[in-house]
């Protein structure tokens, strides 16, 4: 196909792309404006290089603490998901045991249930454990996931049968087969699940909002929500916080986008 025929596509895609990124550019611009500039009519579309908004937001809320909280929770949840999901997925895909099909169906059924059904009882569990306003309250429920088990099972299923048989003849037990032979081979699946989990965990709002009400124990999502309550229409400050909160995942995505997109496309093809 000659390049001459692709220009209409370029025109439409570029126009759409502008709509996609304009709010981000705008957010960064306003995060560098003074308060009066940000409220001007008509809007001022250039920054006034007010860098002090950034230290200001760190002073007004424990943003640094919330940043660390979010990193700890995201790393904990992601590491837990990768380990526990891959263990279960390996067992479902490569081992035979009574009740395997039935148990797997129960796992799948949980994918259908909206997350709101879990929240009140989980809250009461955390309350009972004295875990309200702790990071483990955010990590513990997050490391378990039917979706991750299902996703990784699909990857384990694609590996050839001869692999386990050969390893068994060499006297390897299932744990060794899982860890030394299979796990390295499903690395693309682990990467996809890992990236999706990082994305979800970093952004999740409702559960953190409910269970950790102390600003010191909040994640960035909930922190931004409480910042909104504090600063109302001081958008330069709000946006300075937003930029800090959303930049890490955007950066991770730009670096790892091929793997993340492959993972998402994969969930579609198996759905």
């Amino acid at each position, binding site marked *: 196909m000659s390049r001459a025929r692709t220009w209409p596509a370029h025109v439409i895609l570029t126009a759409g792309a502008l709509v996609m990124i304009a709010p981000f550019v705008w957010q960064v611009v306003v995060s560098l404006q003074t308060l009066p500039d940000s409220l001007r009519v008509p809007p001022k579309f250039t920054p006034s290089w007010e860098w002090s908004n950034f230290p200001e937001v760190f002073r007004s809320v424990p943003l640094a603490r919330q940043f660390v909280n979010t990193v700890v929770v995201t790393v904990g949840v992601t590491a837990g998901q990768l380990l526990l999901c891959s263990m279960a997925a390996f067992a479902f895909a490569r081992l035979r045991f009574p009740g395997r099909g039935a148990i797997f169906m129960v796992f799948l059924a949980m994918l259908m249930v909206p997350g709101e059904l879990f929240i009140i009882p989980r809250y009461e569990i955390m309350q009972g454990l004295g875990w309200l306003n702790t990071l483990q309250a955010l990590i513990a429920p997050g490391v378990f996931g039917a979706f991750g088990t299902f996703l990784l099972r699909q990857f384990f299923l694609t590996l050839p049968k001869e692999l386990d048989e050969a390893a068994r003849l060499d006297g390897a037990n299932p744990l060794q087969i899982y860890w030394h032979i299979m796990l390295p081979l499903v690395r693309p699946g682990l990467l996809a699940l890992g990236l999706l989990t990082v994305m979800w965990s970093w*952004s999740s709002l409702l559960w953190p909002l409910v269970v950790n009400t102390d600003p010191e124990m909040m994640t960035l999502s909930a922190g931004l929500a409480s910042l909104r309550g504090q600063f109302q229409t001081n958008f330069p400050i709000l946006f300075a916080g937003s930029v800090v909160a959303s930049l890490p995942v955007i950066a991770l995505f730009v670096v790892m986008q091929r793997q993340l997109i492959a993972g998402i496309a994969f969930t579609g093809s198996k759905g």
Partner: protein
Amino acid sequence: MLSKREWVWGYLLIAPMALGLGVFYLWPIAQTLYLSFTESGVFGGHTWVGTDNFTELLGDDQMRDALGNTLLYAVLVLAGVPVAIVVAALLNVPGLRGMSVYRTLYFLPVVTMPAAVGLTWRYLFNGDFGAINHFLGELGIDGPYWVGDPDFAIYAIAIVGVWSSVGYNAVLFLAGLQGIPRQYYEAASMDGAGRLRQFFRITLPLLTPTTFFVLVITMINALQVFDLVYLMIDLNSPALNGSRTIVYLFFEKGFVQNQRGLAAAIAVVLLGLILVLTAIQFRLQKKWVHYE
């Protein structure tokens, strides 16, 4: 090779996940169902009240509004799905340079936390100094107060909902498009069918399994919208009456007003709604989804 040792390993390896799902998923489902028939006391504890919560919701204006707002939001976001098909089809144009750059840009809203997205759009939609009304003004249109107006708030939120999911859906559609054998297009070209005709006669029908999948997950996600409403609409704005969704009401009842039993009943209604609407979608798919 079904040895007893293999059983033991199987159970050992699924045990942690099964236990966790039991504690954090299965038990909460049962508990929420139970709580929906109870009232929580001031000092904790639950009293059985039968179906009182559900009858209360039936006559509750806020619940009726929330149901209407949520369904309207879902319809609006579903109506935005064709945008993703067009984007995917354009990204799939043979010989298109810079495809991955476009894909990255369209995907940016997907990876950005909804809290930050909500704050940004709350500013853009501001009635007085927002950029959107400024541009509308240039076109001679007097824009409404969007996030401050109960009649427009849900539309503003739905625009953001579409904006932030186009990239995700386009990636799913792109994968579907790449699964359509090229020979179909070659054969159609030889028969003299133009690009547009090929799109409607080959692409759209063969894409229907993906379209179905996207519609189902988009609907399920839309029915659970919370983050955008929470960040875009001020907590005591009158616009909340026109934009309070089911999950928002769940959050208010359960964790602001501490009416846990009532909140549990709202969650159960949401589950029922999702199950029924998903079942309807599965029923309807036989009429329009082409499986090869």
